[in-house]
Protein backbone atom coordinates (compact mmCIF):
# COMPACT_ATOMS: atom_id res chain seq x y z
CA UNK A 1 0.00 0.00 0.00
CA UNK A 2 2.70 2.49 0.99
CA UNK A 3 4.72 1.59 -2.05
CA UNK A 4 1.70 2.14 -4.21
CA UNK A 5 0.97 5.49 -2.64
CA UNK A 6 4.57 6.56 -2.95
CA UNK A 7 4.62 5.53 -6.59
CA UNK A 8 1.41 7.43 -7.09
CA UNK A 9 2.69 10.56 -5.41
CA UNK A 10 5.83 10.35 -7.48
CA UNK A 11 3.79 9.90 -10.63
CA UNK A 12 1.63 12.87 -9.75
CA UNK A 13 4.66 14.97 -8.99
CA UNK A 14 6.10 14.08 -12.38
CA UNK A 15 2.79 14.77 -14.09
CA UNK A 16 2.32 18.10 -12.38
CA UNK A 17 6.01 18.60 -12.97
CA UNK A 18 6.63 22.21 -13.44
CA UNK A 19 2.90 22.68 -13.90
CA UNK A 20 3.12 24.11 -10.42
CA UNK A 21 4.65 27.01 -12.32
CA UNK A 22 1.26 28.55 -12.88
CA UNK A 23 0.83 29.12 -9.16
CA UNK A 24 4.27 29.71 -7.74
CA UNK A 25 2.91 30.88 -4.41
CA UNK A 26 1.31 27.48 -3.86
CA UNK A 27 4.37 25.44 -4.68
CA UNK A 28 4.14 22.21 -2.83
CA UNK A 29 7.07 20.04 -2.13
CA UNK A 30 5.73 16.53 -2.32
CA UNK A 31 8.04 13.57 -2.26
CA UNK A 32 11.63 13.77 -1.22
CA UNK A 33 14.24 13.53 -3.90
CA UNK A 34 14.69 10.02 -5.17
CA UNK A 35 18.25 10.84 -6.14
CA UNK A 36 20.89 12.76 -4.33
CA UNK A 37 21.84 16.28 -5.29
CA UNK A 38 25.55 16.58 -5.90
CA UNK A 39 27.43 19.76 -6.43
CA UNK A 40 30.79 21.14 -7.35
CA UNK A 41 32.20 24.64 -7.17
CA UNK A 42 35.19 26.03 -9.01
CA UNK A 43 36.82 29.22 -10.22
CA UNK A 44 36.78 29.76 -13.98
CA UNK A 45 36.34 32.63 -16.42
CA UNK A 46 37.26 35.11 -13.66
CA UNK A 47 34.32 34.14 -11.50
CA UNK A 48 32.90 31.49 -9.16
CA UNK A 49 30.86 28.74 -10.77
CA UNK A 50 28.76 26.02 -9.25
CA UNK A 51 27.00 23.02 -10.73
CA UNK A 52 24.33 21.23 -8.71
CA UNK A 53 22.89 18.18 -10.39
CA UNK A 54 20.49 15.52 -9.23
CA UNK A 55 21.84 12.02 -9.75
CA UNK A 56 25.22 13.11 -11.08
CA UNK A 57 28.34 11.26 -9.93
CA UNK A 58 31.76 12.72 -9.19
CA UNK A 59 33.03 11.77 -12.64
CA UNK A 60 30.27 13.73 -14.36
CA UNK A 61 30.90 16.79 -12.20
CA UNK A 62 34.60 16.59 -13.02
CA UNK A 63 33.69 16.35 -16.69
CA UNK A 64 31.53 19.46 -16.33
CA UNK A 65 34.37 21.42 -14.76
CA UNK A 66 36.80 20.22 -17.44
CA UNK A 67 34.36 21.37 -20.13
CA UNK A 68 34.26 24.87 -18.65
CA UNK A 69 38.03 25.06 -18.34
CA UNK A 70 38.53 23.92 -21.94
CA UNK A 71 36.08 26.56 -23.16
CA UNK A 72 37.91 29.21 -21.14
CA UNK A 73 41.21 28.14 -22.66
CA UNK A 74 39.75 28.53 -26.12
CA UNK A 75 37.67 31.68 -25.74
CA UNK A 76 39.64 33.83 -23.30
CA UNK A 77 40.67 37.21 -24.68
CA UNK A 78 43.66 37.50 -22.39
CA UNK A 79 45.06 33.98 -22.39
CA UNK A 80 47.96 33.69 -24.79
CA UNK A 81 47.36 30.92 -27.31
CA UNK A 82 43.55 30.94 -27.07
CA UNK A 83 41.72 31.09 -30.41
CA UNK A 84 40.34 34.54 -29.60
CA UNK A 85 43.75 35.82 -28.46
CA UNK A 86 45.29 34.60 -31.72
CA UNK A 87 42.53 36.23 -33.75
CA UNK A 88 43.02 39.54 -31.93
CA UNK A 89 46.80 39.54 -32.17
CA UNK A 90 47.39 38.02 -35.57
CA UNK A 91 44.24 39.11 -37.37
CA UNK A 92 43.14 35.62 -38.25
CA UNK A 93 42.65 32.26 -36.57
CA UNK A 94 41.42 28.78 -37.24
CA UNK A 95 38.62 28.14 -34.75
CA UNK A 96 37.23 24.90 -33.39
CA UNK A 97 33.72 23.99 -34.50
CA UNK A 98 32.19 25.19 -31.24
CA UNK A 99 34.16 28.47 -31.16
CA UNK A 100 33.14 29.13 -34.77
CA UNK A 101 29.52 28.39 -33.89
CA UNK A 102 29.69 30.81 -30.96
CA UNK A 103 31.28 33.58 -33.03
CA UNK A 104 28.71 33.03 -35.79
CA UNK A 105 25.82 33.26 -33.36
CA UNK A 106 27.35 36.28 -31.64
CA UNK A 107 27.73 38.12 -34.97
CA UNK A 108 24.14 37.27 -35.89
CA UNK A 109 22.98 38.71 -32.55
CA UNK A 110 25.06 41.85 -33.11
CA UNK A 111 23.10 42.30 -36.35
CA UNK A 112 19.77 41.34 -34.77
CA UNK A 113 20.25 43.98 -32.06
CA UNK A 114 21.39 46.55 -34.62
CA UNK A 115 24.82 46.86 -33.05
CA UNK A 116 23.66 47.36 -29.46
CA UNK A 117 25.76 44.25 -28.94
CA UNK A 118 29.11 44.54 -30.68
CA UNK A 119 31.86 41.95 -30.10
CA UNK A 120 34.48 44.42 -31.36
CA UNK A 121 33.98 47.01 -28.61
CA UNK A 122 36.72 45.34 -26.54
CA UNK A 123 39.52 47.94 -27.09
CA UNK A 124 37.13 50.63 -25.82
CA UNK A 125 36.33 48.62 -22.69
CA UNK A 126 40.06 48.20 -22.13
CA UNK A 127 40.71 51.93 -22.56
CA UNK A 128 38.33 52.57 -19.66
CA UNK A 129 40.31 50.09 -17.53
CA UNK A 130 37.55 47.50 -17.18
CA UNK A 131 39.48 44.53 -18.55
CA UNK A 132 42.03 44.24 -15.78
CA UNK A 133 41.41 43.43 -12.14
CA UNK A 134 43.87 46.00 -10.78
CA UNK A 135 41.36 48.83 -10.59
CA UNK A 136 43.25 51.13 -12.96
CA UNK A 137 40.10 52.86 -14.20
CA UNK A 138 40.26 56.06 -16.23
CA UNK A 139 38.09 58.25 -18.43
CA UNK A 140 39.53 58.31 -21.98
CA UNK A 141 39.28 61.67 -23.77
CA UNK A 142 37.16 62.20 -26.87
CA UNK A 143 40.06 61.99 -29.32
CA UNK A 144 41.17 58.66 -27.92
CA UNK A 145 37.62 57.27 -28.06
CA UNK A 146 37.13 58.52 -31.62
CA UNK A 147 40.28 56.75 -32.71
CA UNK A 148 39.24 53.53 -30.99
CA UNK A 149 35.70 53.68 -32.40
CA UNK A 150 37.16 53.59 -35.93
CA UNK A 151 37.83 49.93 -35.30
CA UNK A 152 34.52 49.07 -33.61
CA UNK A 153 32.33 47.44 -36.25
CA UNK A 154 31.23 43.82 -35.98
CA UNK A 155 30.29 43.73 -39.70
CA UNK A 156 34.00 43.71 -40.52
CA UNK A 157 34.61 40.47 -38.61
CA UNK A 158 34.83 37.73 -41.22
CA UNK A 159 33.86 34.15 -40.51
CA UNK A 160 34.18 31.54 -43.23
CA UNK A 161 33.46 28.08 -41.91
CA UNK A 162 35.89 27.82 -39.02
CA UNK A 163 38.26 30.50 -40.28
CA UNK A 164 37.92 33.91 -38.73
CA UNK A 165 39.67 37.17 -39.45
CA UNK A 166 39.51 40.77 -38.26
CA UNK A 167 40.99 43.89 -39.85
CA UNK A 168 44.14 45.55 -38.51
CA UNK A 169 43.48 47.31 -35.22
CA UNK A 170 40.28 45.42 -34.40
CA UNK A 171 39.97 43.10 -31.42
CA UNK A 172 36.99 41.05 -30.40
CA UNK A 173 35.82 39.65 -27.10
CA UNK A 174 33.12 37.01 -26.72
CA UNK A 175 32.62 37.76 -23.02
CA UNK A 176 29.00 38.83 -23.52
CA UNK A 177 28.03 35.36 -24.78
CA UNK A 178 30.62 32.94 -23.40
CA UNK A 179 29.06 32.21 -20.03
CA UNK A 180 25.63 31.71 -21.58
CA UNK A 181 27.01 29.36 -24.21
CA UNK A 182 28.99 27.51 -21.53
CA UNK A 183 25.72 27.01 -19.65
CA UNK A 184 24.10 25.59 -22.80
CA UNK A 185 26.94 23.12 -23.36
CA UNK A 186 26.87 22.10 -19.67
CA UNK A 187 23.12 21.61 -19.89
CA UNK A 188 23.58 19.37 -22.95
CA UNK A 189 26.31 17.38 -21.19
CA UNK A 190 24.14 16.82 -18.11
CA UNK A 191 21.08 15.90 -20.18
CA UNK A 192 23.05 13.40 -22.27
CA UNK A 193 24.24 11.83 -19.04
CA UNK A 194 20.69 11.33 -17.84
CA UNK A 195 20.44 14.29 -15.45
CA UNK A 196 16.93 15.74 -15.44
CA UNK A 197 17.28 18.24 -12.64
CA UNK A 198 20.17 20.64 -12.18
CA UNK A 199 21.04 24.23 -11.41
CA UNK A 200 24.07 26.00 -12.81
CA UNK A 201 25.34 29.25 -11.35
CA UNK A 202 28.03 30.54 -13.65
CA UNK A 203 29.13 33.68 -11.86
CA UNK A 204 25.60 35.02 -11.58
CA UNK A 205 24.24 33.55 -14.81
CA UNK A 206 21.73 31.03 -13.51
CA UNK A 207 20.64 28.19 -15.80
CA UNK A 208 18.19 25.53 -14.73
CA UNK A 209 17.79 22.04 -16.14
CA UNK A 210 14.27 20.65 -15.69
CA UNK A 211 12.48 21.40 -12.44
CA UNK A 212 13.63 20.74 -8.90
CA UNK A 213 13.87 17.06 -7.92
CA UNK A 214 10.54 17.39 -6.11
CA UNK A 215 8.83 18.61 -9.27
CA UNK A 216 8.45 22.24 -8.23
CA UNK A 217 9.99 25.25 -9.93
CA UNK A 218 13.43 26.55 -9.10
CA UNK A 219 13.36 29.82 -7.19
CA UNK A 220 15.90 32.18 -8.65
CA UNK A 221 16.50 35.51 -6.94
CA UNK A 222 17.24 38.62 -8.98
CA UNK A 223 19.71 41.10 -7.52
CA UNK A 224 18.59 44.62 -6.73
CA UNK A 225 20.87 46.88 -8.81
CA UNK A 226 20.70 49.67 -6.24
CA UNK A 227 21.43 47.73 -3.08
CA UNK A 228 22.63 44.58 -1.49
CA UNK A 229 19.27 42.85 -1.49
CA UNK A 230 17.00 41.32 -4.07
CA UNK A 231 14.29 42.57 -6.39
CA UNK A 232 12.46 39.34 -5.78
CA UNK A 233 12.40 35.74 -6.94
CA UNK A 234 11.42 34.11 -10.22
CA UNK A 235 9.86 30.64 -10.34
CA UNK A 236 11.34 28.91 -13.38
CA UNK A 237 12.12 25.51 -14.89
CA UNK A 238 14.32 24.73 -17.89
CA UNK A 239 15.26 28.39 -18.24
CA UNK A 240 18.32 30.57 -18.25
CA UNK A 241 18.11 33.70 -16.08
CA UNK A 242 20.82 36.20 -16.99
CA UNK A 243 21.21 39.68 -15.52
CA UNK A 244 23.32 42.63 -16.65
CA UNK A 245 23.64 45.57 -14.32
CA UNK A 246 25.71 48.67 -13.90
CA UNK A 247 26.63 47.56 -10.37
CA UNK A 248 28.95 44.73 -11.37
CA UNK A 249 32.02 46.79 -12.18
CA UNK A 250 32.12 50.55 -11.96
CA UNK A 251 34.07 53.53 -10.69
CA UNK A 252 33.41 57.16 -9.92
CA UNK A 253 35.59 60.08 -10.97
CA UNK A 254 36.63 63.03 -8.78
CA UNK A 255 33.42 64.86 -9.67
CA UNK A 256 31.37 61.89 -8.48
CA UNK A 257 30.19 60.78 -11.92
CA UNK A 258 29.54 57.05 -12.06
CA UNK A 259 30.96 54.98 -14.92
CA UNK A 260 30.08 51.32 -15.36
CA UNK A 261 31.49 48.56 -17.54
CA UNK A 262 28.65 48.10 -20.03
CA UNK A 263 29.72 50.14 -23.06
CA UNK A 264 27.53 51.66 -25.72
CA UNK A 265 29.38 50.65 -28.92
CA UNK A 266 28.07 53.76 -30.68
CA UNK A 267 29.46 56.33 -28.22
CA UNK A 268 32.32 54.37 -26.69
CA UNK A 269 31.02 55.45 -23.27
CA UNK A 270 29.13 53.56 -20.57
CA UNK A 271 25.56 52.91 -21.76
CA UNK A 272 23.20 55.26 -19.94
CA UNK A 273 19.91 54.93 -21.69
CA UNK A 274 17.52 54.71 -18.78
CA UNK A 275 18.22 51.21 -17.47
CA UNK A 276 20.24 50.12 -14.45
CA UNK A 277 19.52 46.40 -14.70
CA UNK A 278 18.19 43.94 -17.27
CA UNK A 279 17.31 40.33 -16.52
CA UNK A 280 16.51 38.07 -19.46
CA UNK A 281 14.69 34.75 -19.02
CA UNK A 282 14.65 32.28 -21.89
CA UNK A 283 15.36 28.80 -23.16
CA UNK A 284 18.91 29.40 -24.31
CA UNK A 285 21.75 30.77 -22.20
CA UNK A 286 23.64 32.21 -25.15
CA UNK A 287 20.64 34.21 -26.34
CA UNK A 288 19.77 35.46 -22.83
CA UNK A 289 23.38 36.41 -22.15
CA UNK A 290 23.67 38.42 -25.39
CA UNK A 291 20.30 40.09 -24.90
CA UNK A 292 20.92 41.11 -21.29
CA UNK A 293 23.83 43.25 -22.51
CA UNK A 294 22.18 44.43 -25.74
CA UNK A 295 18.89 45.46 -24.10
CA UNK A 296 20.81 47.32 -21.38
CA UNK A 297 22.56 49.30 -24.12
CA UNK A 298 19.32 49.90 -26.05
CA UNK A 299 17.57 51.50 -23.11
CA UNK A 300 13.99 51.21 -21.89
CA UNK A 301 12.00 52.13 -25.01
CA UNK A 302 14.05 50.15 -27.50
CA UNK A 303 14.29 47.13 -25.20
CA UNK A 304 10.51 47.02 -24.97
CA UNK A 305 10.18 47.44 -28.75
CA UNK A 306 12.70 44.61 -29.24
CA UNK A 307 10.70 42.33 -26.94
CA UNK A 308 7.45 43.13 -28.74
CA UNK A 309 9.05 42.30 -32.09
CA UNK A 310 10.59 39.01 -30.92
CA UNK A 311 8.59 37.50 -28.03
CA UNK A 312 10.96 34.56 -27.66
CA UNK A 313 12.20 35.62 -24.22
CA UNK A 314 10.98 37.39 -21.08
CA UNK A 315 12.62 40.18 -19.15
CA UNK A 316 12.73 42.23 -15.96
CA UNK A 317 13.86 45.82 -16.48
CA UNK A 318 14.86 48.24 -13.73
CA UNK A 319 14.92 51.85 -14.81
CA UNK A 320 17.01 54.71 -13.52
CA UNK A 321 13.82 56.50 -12.47
CA UNK A 322 12.82 53.72 -10.09
CA UNK A 323 10.47 51.49 -12.06
CA UNK A 324 10.51 47.70 -12.32
CA UNK A 325 8.99 46.48 -15.58
CA UNK A 326 8.04 42.84 -16.25
CA UNK A 327 6.89 41.08 -19.40
CA UNK A 328 3.38 39.62 -18.93
CA UNK A 329 4.49 35.97 -18.65
CA UNK A 330 6.74 36.84 -15.70
CA UNK A 331 4.01 38.65 -13.79
CA UNK A 332 2.82 35.41 -12.22
CA UNK A 333 6.29 33.93 -11.85
CA UNK A 334 7.76 36.88 -10.00
CA UNK A 335 7.48 37.35 -6.24
CA UNK A 336 8.70 40.82 -5.26
CA UNK A 337 10.92 41.22 -2.23
CA UNK A 338 9.46 42.73 0.93
CA UNK A 339 9.41 46.52 0.97
CA UNK A 340 10.48 46.76 -2.65
CA UNK A 341 11.29 50.38 -3.42
CA UNK A 342 10.43 50.18 -7.13
CA UNK A 343 7.13 50.94 -8.73
CA UNK A 344 6.25 47.66 -10.43
CA UNK A 345 4.38 47.45 -13.74
CA UNK A 346 3.69 44.86 -16.41
CA UNK A 347 4.76 45.77 -19.93
CA UNK A 348 1.76 46.08 -22.26
CA UNK A 349 1.53 43.47 -25.00
CA UNK A 350 1.55 46.03 -27.76
Amino acid sequence: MYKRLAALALGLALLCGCGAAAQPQKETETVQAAQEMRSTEFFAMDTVMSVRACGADEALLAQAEALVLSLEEELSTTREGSAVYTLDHEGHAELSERAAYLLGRALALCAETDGALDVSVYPVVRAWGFTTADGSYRVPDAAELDALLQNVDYTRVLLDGTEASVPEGMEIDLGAVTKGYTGDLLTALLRESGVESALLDLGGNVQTVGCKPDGSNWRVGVKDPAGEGLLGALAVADKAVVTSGGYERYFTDDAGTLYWHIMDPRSGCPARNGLISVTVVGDEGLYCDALSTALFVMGTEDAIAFWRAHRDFDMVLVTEDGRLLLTPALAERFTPADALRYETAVIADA
Partner: protein
Amino acid sequence: MLKTRTWILLFAAAALALGLLSWRLLGTPVEGTVVEVVQDGVVLREIDLSAVREAYSFVVTWPDGGSNTVLVEPGRICVAEADCPDGLCVRQGWLSDRGAPLVCLPHRLVIRLKGEGALDGVSR
Protein backbone atom coordinates in the same frame (compact mmCIF):
# COMPACT_ATOMS: atom_id res chain seq x y z
CA MET B 1 -15.01 1.13 -14.18
CA LEU B 2 -16.10 1.94 -10.67
CA LYS B 3 -12.88 0.51 -9.36
CA THR B 4 -10.77 2.80 -11.55
CA ARG B 5 -12.78 5.82 -10.53
CA THR B 6 -12.44 4.98 -6.85
CA TRP B 7 -8.70 4.67 -7.26
CA ILE B 8 -8.45 8.01 -9.02
CA LEU B 9 -10.41 9.67 -6.22
CA LEU B 10 -8.29 8.02 -3.58
CA PHE B 11 -5.13 9.07 -5.34
CA ALA B 12 -6.29 12.63 -5.75
CA ALA B 13 -7.27 12.86 -2.08
CA ALA B 14 -3.95 11.40 -0.97
CA ALA B 15 -2.00 13.78 -3.19
CA LEU B 16 -3.98 16.77 -1.93
CA ALA B 17 -3.44 15.79 1.70
CA LEU B 18 0.27 15.28 1.11
CA GLY B 19 0.53 18.57 -0.70
CA LEU B 20 -1.29 20.54 1.99
CA LEU B 21 0.78 18.93 4.71
CA SER B 22 4.13 19.71 3.09
CA TRP B 23 2.98 23.21 2.23
CA ARG B 24 2.29 23.85 5.88
CA LEU B 25 5.54 22.28 6.96
CA LEU B 26 7.76 23.92 4.38
CA GLY B 27 5.84 27.04 3.52
CA THR B 28 7.67 29.41 5.80
CA PRO B 29 11.31 29.89 4.87
CA VAL B 30 13.68 30.44 7.75
CA GLU B 31 16.26 33.19 7.41
CA GLY B 32 19.70 31.64 7.64
CA THR B 33 22.30 33.04 10.01
CA VAL B 34 25.02 30.46 9.50
CA VAL B 35 27.73 31.56 7.10
CA GLU B 36 30.49 29.59 5.46
CA VAL B 37 34.00 30.85 4.79
CA VAL B 38 35.22 28.91 1.76
CA GLN B 39 38.60 29.00 0.06
CA ASP B 40 39.01 27.30 -3.32
CA GLY B 41 36.00 25.09 -2.60
CA VAL B 42 37.14 24.06 0.90
CA VAL B 43 34.99 25.17 3.84
CA LEU B 44 37.43 26.72 6.33
CA ARG B 45 34.90 27.84 8.91
CA GLU B 46 31.22 27.77 9.65
CA ILE B 47 30.02 30.64 11.79
CA ASP B 48 26.59 31.04 13.35
CA LEU B 49 26.29 34.84 13.34
CA SER B 50 23.39 34.78 15.77
CA ALA B 51 25.66 33.15 18.37
CA VAL B 52 28.42 35.75 18.10
CA ARG B 53 28.64 37.81 21.32
CA GLU B 54 31.82 39.78 20.79
CA ALA B 55 33.50 41.04 17.65
CA TYR B 56 36.60 39.22 16.47
CA SER B 57 38.61 38.87 13.32
CA PHE B 58 40.78 36.25 11.67
CA VAL B 59 43.14 36.13 8.73
CA VAL B 60 42.75 33.81 5.76
CA THR B 61 45.98 33.41 3.82
CA TRP B 62 46.19 32.36 0.20
CA PRO B 63 49.05 29.90 -0.48
CA ASP B 64 50.23 31.83 -3.54
CA GLY B 65 50.63 34.95 -1.43
CA GLY B 66 48.19 37.44 0.00
CA SER B 67 45.58 37.43 2.71
CA ASN B 68 42.14 38.64 3.74
CA THR B 69 41.17 39.76 7.20
CA VAL B 70 37.62 38.70 8.02
CA LEU B 71 35.72 40.68 10.63
CA VAL B 72 32.90 38.99 12.55
CA GLU B 73 30.46 40.97 14.68
CA PRO B 74 27.20 39.94 16.33
CA GLY B 75 24.90 39.20 13.40
CA ARG B 76 27.23 40.26 10.61
CA ILE B 77 30.45 39.53 8.73
CA CYS B 78 32.68 41.31 6.22
CA VAL B 79 36.17 41.39 4.77
CA ALA B 80 37.82 44.25 6.66
CA GLU B 81 41.21 44.22 4.96
CA ALA B 82 42.78 42.54 1.97
CA ASP B 83 45.89 42.94 -0.15
CA CYS B 84 44.30 41.75 -3.40
CA PRO B 85 44.80 44.16 -6.33
CA ASP B 86 41.16 45.19 -6.77
CA GLY B 87 39.98 45.24 -3.16
CA LEU B 88 36.46 44.35 -4.31
CA CYS B 89 35.88 42.02 -1.37
CA VAL B 90 36.40 44.91 1.06
CA ARG B 91 34.24 47.25 -1.02
CA GLN B 92 31.37 44.77 -0.91
CA GLY B 93 30.92 45.61 2.78
CA TRP B 94 28.83 43.44 5.10
CA LEU B 95 27.42 40.19 3.76
CA SER B 96 23.77 40.76 3.01
CA ASP B 97 21.26 38.15 4.08
CA ARG B 98 19.73 38.06 0.62
CA GLY B 99 22.20 39.35 -1.91
CA ALA B 100 25.40 38.06 -3.46
CA PRO B 101 28.12 36.32 -1.47
CA LEU B 102 31.35 38.16 -0.62
CA VAL B 103 33.98 37.08 -3.13
CA CYS B 104 37.72 37.68 -3.43
CA LEU B 105 38.64 36.23 -6.80
CA PRO B 106 42.43 36.64 -6.54
CA HIS B 107 42.48 34.71 -3.26
CA ARG B 108 39.62 32.38 -4.23
CA LEU B 109 37.73 33.27 -1.07
CA VAL B 110 33.94 33.09 -0.79
CA ILE B 111 31.87 34.04 2.25
CA ARG B 112 28.25 33.06 1.87
CA LEU B 113 25.13 32.15 3.74
CA LYS B 114 24.86 28.44 4.29
CA GLY B 115 21.98 27.08 2.24
CA GLU B 116 21.25 30.51 0.74
CA GLY B 117 17.87 30.75 2.44
CA ALA B 118 14.83 29.69 0.44
CA LEU B 119 16.35 30.49 -2.92
CA ASP B 120 18.07 28.08 -5.27
CA GLY B 121 20.26 30.71 -6.89
CA VAL B 122 20.64 34.43 -7.51
CA SER B 123 20.91 35.99 -10.98
CA ARG B 124 23.18 39.02 -10.88
